[in-house]
């Protein structure tokens, strides 16, 4: 199987996943219909799996050498993580959200077939690259939502409409997002050991990833310790996202980043 069939694969899995999301939302009215949602979801996963395995076979190597190939893996694992989160936490929108992200990644491969051959430098050609990036994308996505929830909570507080549900949602997002942030740090460290010889080099990107992680750590402990300190906790959560953004985009503009190994 090669990239020529990919547009069909894409259309098929998108349709199946889309149907799954639709059913999951509709099934809120009719719980028994939910089983159809699972079926559609797993059918979509099966299509992607068959394509990846087929491509693997035809290339005679794991498809992990080009950016297009790595996007294939994002498109495979994002829905899976979203599905898990939905099953565990009944957060249907996380499923929808992660499927949307997967479709965007896979869509780039359809619209821009040229990029399939775009080179990945040797250090990036690692089995750890994909898990590292996937868990980070997922963590960032959830933590972005937690920041919105924090702002909502602060707004609610100001207008006297504060709801405990908002707070619970924020905590939930952070616990899940923080778990994935931790996975991302550790996968990155293990990859660093294999590629660059050490698991921690105090590279500016690493430093900011650590700072991001610490701020969410602080949030968790403030919440666990003094659940009455709602306002400071929500401010911490909103601020944490600013640190996250610096880590994501801003690092390259800091004086500390001259000569960073993270060029992406």
């Amino acid at each position, binding site marked *: 199987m090669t990239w020529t069939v990919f547009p069909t694969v894409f259309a098929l899995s998108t349709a199946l996943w889309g149907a799954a999301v639709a059913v999951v939302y509709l099934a809120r009215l009719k719980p028994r219909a939910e089983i159809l949602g699972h079926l559609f979801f797993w059918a979509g996963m099966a299509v992607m799996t068959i394509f990846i395995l087929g491509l693997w076979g035809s290339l005679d190597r794991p498809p992990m*050498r080009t950016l297009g190939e790595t996007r294939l893996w994002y498109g495979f694992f994002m829905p899976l993580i979203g599905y898990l989160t939905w099953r*565990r*936490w009944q957060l249907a929108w996380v499923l929808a959200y992660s499927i949307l992200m997967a479709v965007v990644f896979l869509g780039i491969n359809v619209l821009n077939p*040229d990029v399939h*051959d775009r080179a990945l*430098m*040797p*250090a990036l*050609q*690692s089995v750890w690259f994909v898990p590292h990036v996937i868990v980070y994308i997922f963590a960032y996505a959830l933590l972005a939502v937690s920041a919105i929830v924090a702002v909502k*909570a602060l707004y609610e*507080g100001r*207008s*006297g*409409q*504060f*709801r*405990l549900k908002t*707070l*619970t949602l924020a*905590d*939930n997002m952070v*616990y*899940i997002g*923080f*778990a994935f942030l*931790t*996975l991302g740090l*550790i996968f990155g*460290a*293990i990859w660093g*050991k*294999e*590629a*660059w*010889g*050490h*698991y921690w080099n*105090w590279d*500016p990107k690493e*430093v900011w990833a*650590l*700072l991001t992680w*610490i*701020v969410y750590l*602080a949030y968790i*402990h403030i*919440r*666990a*310790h*003094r*659940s*009455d300190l*709602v*306002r400071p906790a929500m401010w911490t959560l909103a601020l944490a996202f600013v640190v996250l953004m610096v880590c994501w985009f801003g690092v390259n503009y*800091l*004086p*500390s*980043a*001259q000569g960073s190994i993270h060029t992406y």
Partner: protein
Amino acid sequence: MEPFTSNGRKNRIKPRKTVWLFPWGYTEAFLIAAALLLVGFALEWVTPGDGLSAPSWPWNGVIWVVLLLIPLLLHITMPQNPIVRWMSQVPASMGAIAAVTFSVLLMGLFLQGQPSGIGWMDRLGLSRMASSWPFLLSISWFLFVLVMTTIRRSIPFRGRNIGFLLNHLGLWIVIAGGILGSGDLLRVTMTLSEGQTVWYGTDRDGRTVELPLALELHRFHMEEYPPKMGVLSHETGGLIIRGEQDLVEIERGRKGHMSGWDYEILQFFAESARIEDRFEPLHDIGAAPAAQIRAVHAERGDTVTGWITCGSFNMKHQFLELEEGRAMAMTVPQSKRYMSLARLYTQSGDNRMIDIEVNHPYSAEGWKLYQFSYDDRFGKWSPISIIEAIRDPWLPVVYTGFIMMLLGAVYLFWLGKDIGTELTQNTDEVDSAPDAQDSPGSSGSATNEKEVSGQPAEARLKTEIS
């Protein structure tokens, strides 16, 4: 069950407490954190040098044990001492976390590893925070508080604390193991040339380190991606790139349009040599890729045909002049993968061919061998290959911590907000000592009740946040 209820009125009704009067809380925590940083910077100021480094075996092992023993002894001998209790609670943790965050923030803001040239900044250690006193003091305090917390929650052990233990002890093991282990970390580079046997490496200070293994380079091997081509502007000296179509991978038969010219790639050789005014395929040292291009100006219709090459260390590059100030040029191909094929000899008598590739280190005799570098003037024809040999005997310790934290993360994902409930139930038991109720720092004051003083939790929070 709603875990996020307030921890009760009592804290807020209580009159403000004087600093340093027991029980301690956040104020004391932040004062101590600030004091540690100040002392650290002061030490840095009065003891100029190139920074601290961890002691090597056995002293790092001794420190490891001491770091565990002191908190254990404190916990066993005086568990009810207010300072001992305070050190295992969130306020002290937040102070320690803040101090570490501050030093890491400095690391994240200033360029590390080379002096800034600004006298006072370098003297304070701001350009090498990771080996500075303020960082050492804050991370030591952090580790101390972390292990105090872990001990208080883990002795006696209860099954439901497993997630807590995995996260907190795992993190402690990773940080303590990483920092102390750096005292035994050896990193040396071996420069290999074909046919020579090398059994030593050079460390960063230029010292020679003898190794229990030897490498004989058989061949350095590199695969490259096809080169790309684009239109060069002689004024700027750079390629004119406005979009995807302006820098394309070279392959035979490719047609396209860039900067006003329609082109066709008539021939392409990945390795070739110049013979008079043309190129012929040739596999030999110094061979370079070459392509024959025909370009037709889209409006004027004038045609140019000729060869381009990016050249190599012994072949000059060649452009195809299109018009005044514009030429078609080839970029140097990027490496796809590179590796050393070498024979490995070990002290234990092993003798075999191995390959060492980027991202695929080879382990032997307690060392890991990494493809590190090559002579980039020669590119794929590099006559030498540089291997980095690394010995990190503490790696299993750090990886044990990683595994614990991975499991801890899974636990966190799976239990999510329920953990909060668990905390409150748990600390109720731990903090049932008589003094627990007045301690603002004590998490024991967190309750699980939905209502405190007759007010529903939600309504109460509404008043608090607004």
